[in-house]
């Protein structure tokens, strides 16, 4: 049985990775299982300088989902490269660094720093955090700005470049096409949906940031639909599917819709070993259906 897949030239031992922002820098979960079991670890969004994030409260649970407004808190690329990466590298898995900037120049600087770090296997460009201000959101929602940031980052790195798309757009296929035309090797989709919740007793928002990113099983049908749409128009572009994947069944839906790999996000919070259950469940599905190679069912949904 073959679970190995290739994303933008990067070989993964299996198609299961962790979604950025839900798995810390990987090491937080090292006490729960052997990280070498994973196809890849995608780390928390990094920036050139450390960022303290948004004030609390930052979390609110909704029906079958959660809102977060962490605000891209991170230790900064230099501290990640110095303190986390050498430990993370000891695991036999791929390390994908999710990163962002507040300006195009910062995106480029971050990409160059990570490009030069030993042990980073690929970059995931974060243009889609819903907790930044409206001007920043343009990176992920305005096709002209998206094209510029992807093209500039492309020039700054020779590593495989994955662009993580925002679902908070009218037509995600347009954004996907723009990112690929500007130099993206692969696409991750989707990031969280911008959401909101109000405490009707205090008549105030539940999150200090007012709005936050909705994740979890509640968003899975939306994510699946978007991934399928993008796969239809860009069948040769490697897609990493994410958004509410809790079980192997969810992951297989994404693969059938066209994902060559999947990322488990909020499920890590619910169960630190969720990724292992997903990997095991994919293997069981393959043997039940006599599938010799996981690649054989990518995009295999019959519509």
């Amino acid at each position, binding site marked *: 049985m073959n679970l190995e897949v290739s994303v933008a030239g990067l070989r993964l031992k299996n198609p299961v990775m962790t979604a950025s922002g839900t798995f810390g820098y990987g090491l*937080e979960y090292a006490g*729960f299982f052997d990280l070498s079991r994973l196809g890849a670890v995608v780390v928390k969004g990094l920036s050139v300088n450390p960022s303290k994030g948004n004030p*609390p409260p930052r*979390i609110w649970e909704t029906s079958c989902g959660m809102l977060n407004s*962490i605000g891209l808190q991170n230790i900064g690329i230099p501290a990640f490269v110095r303190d986390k990466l050498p430990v993370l590298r000891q695991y036999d898995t791929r390390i994908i660094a999710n990163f962002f900037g507040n300006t195009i120049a910062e995106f480029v600087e971050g990409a160059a720093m990570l490009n030069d770090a030993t042990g980073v296997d690929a970059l995931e460009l974060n243009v889609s955090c819903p907790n930044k201000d409206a001007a920043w959101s343009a990176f992920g929602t305005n096709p002209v700005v998206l094209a510029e940031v992807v093209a500039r980052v492309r020039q700054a790195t020779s590593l495989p470049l994955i662009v993580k798309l925002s679902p908070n757009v009218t037509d995600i296929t347009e954004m996907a096409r723009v990112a690929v035309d500007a130099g993206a090797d692969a696409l991750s989709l989707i990031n969280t949906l911008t959401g909101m919740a109000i405490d009707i007793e205090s008549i105030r928002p539940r999150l200090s940031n007012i709005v936050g990113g909705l994740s979890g099983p509640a968003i899975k049908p939306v994510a699946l639909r978007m991934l399928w749409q993008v796969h239809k128009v860009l069948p040769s572009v490697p897609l990493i599917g994410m958004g509410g994947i809790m079980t192997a069944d969810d992951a297989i839906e994404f693969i059938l819709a066209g994902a060559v790999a999947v990322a488990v996000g*909020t499920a890590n919070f619910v169960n630190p070993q969720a990724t292992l259950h997903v990997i095991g469940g994919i293997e069981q599905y393959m043997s039940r259906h006599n599938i010799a190679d996981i690649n054989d069912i990518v995009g295999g949904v019959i519509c």
Partner: protein
Amino acid sequence: MIRQFSAEVTSNVRLSDGVFMLVLSPMSEVLRPCAGQFYMVGQGCGIPGKKPLFDPLLKRPFSCMDYNDGLLHFMIKLRGRFTAILGNCTPGTVLELIGPIGNAFPAVGAGERLIVVAGGIGIASVAMLLRDYPEATLFYGVRSANDLFVDQLPPVARLHVTSDDGSAGDKGNVLEHLRQYIASIVETTEGGVIKVYACGPYAMTEQLCRMFASKGGDLCKVNGWTVEAFVSVEERMACGVAACLGCTVSTVNGYRLVCKDGPVFSVNDLIPVAT
């Protein structure tokens, strides 16, 4: 040892209209919790052969009230949908836990006096201290006699109960009685160190900071006595393992995580936010 485990409900007793005692038997070897540590408790979702439940989705943090004969005791107040589900769990139900989590209360040095302060259900976070330090004094404030659960505690050397309505112990605010008690100690005995370990509603944490913080606290140094106060705080969290970065509190050192840097903080570090 892995900190994720399944546990079976061995008993679940309603102590009052709004509070229940959930006793769990871990189904694998677990670490011994220290006073002040907590667990993320969730509906079983990683159990082979059982269909996972995703609503409510996240685990919730609960302080360990006691660890005895291999059983974990949680005293829980009914607050919302999740606590209602836990309150209705029958013996044999399997739950999934992560823990023990957090930094625990610091050790009390020889010759130091320990005063434990609980406000309402906050007693669940400090009760284990009473087992570790049988000589401790407990100040236990409740709204009314219905919220008082002294019979669930280990033996207490000196107990001061206060209630808002006067239906149990002295009427009034527990911290006002604590203030008088400390005043009487520092006036009548030779100096030393008093440790105040507390857990209660947010307003109580705020008040403790005002009383005992080394900057601006009026009771932190009196008459040769030093009072060092530590408070267990809570915040919404998704993971309990410092990955989600959801459970931040404001401290003099910037944002800190309740699950990793806390839940116990010195009043010198906390920056209470006006509510």
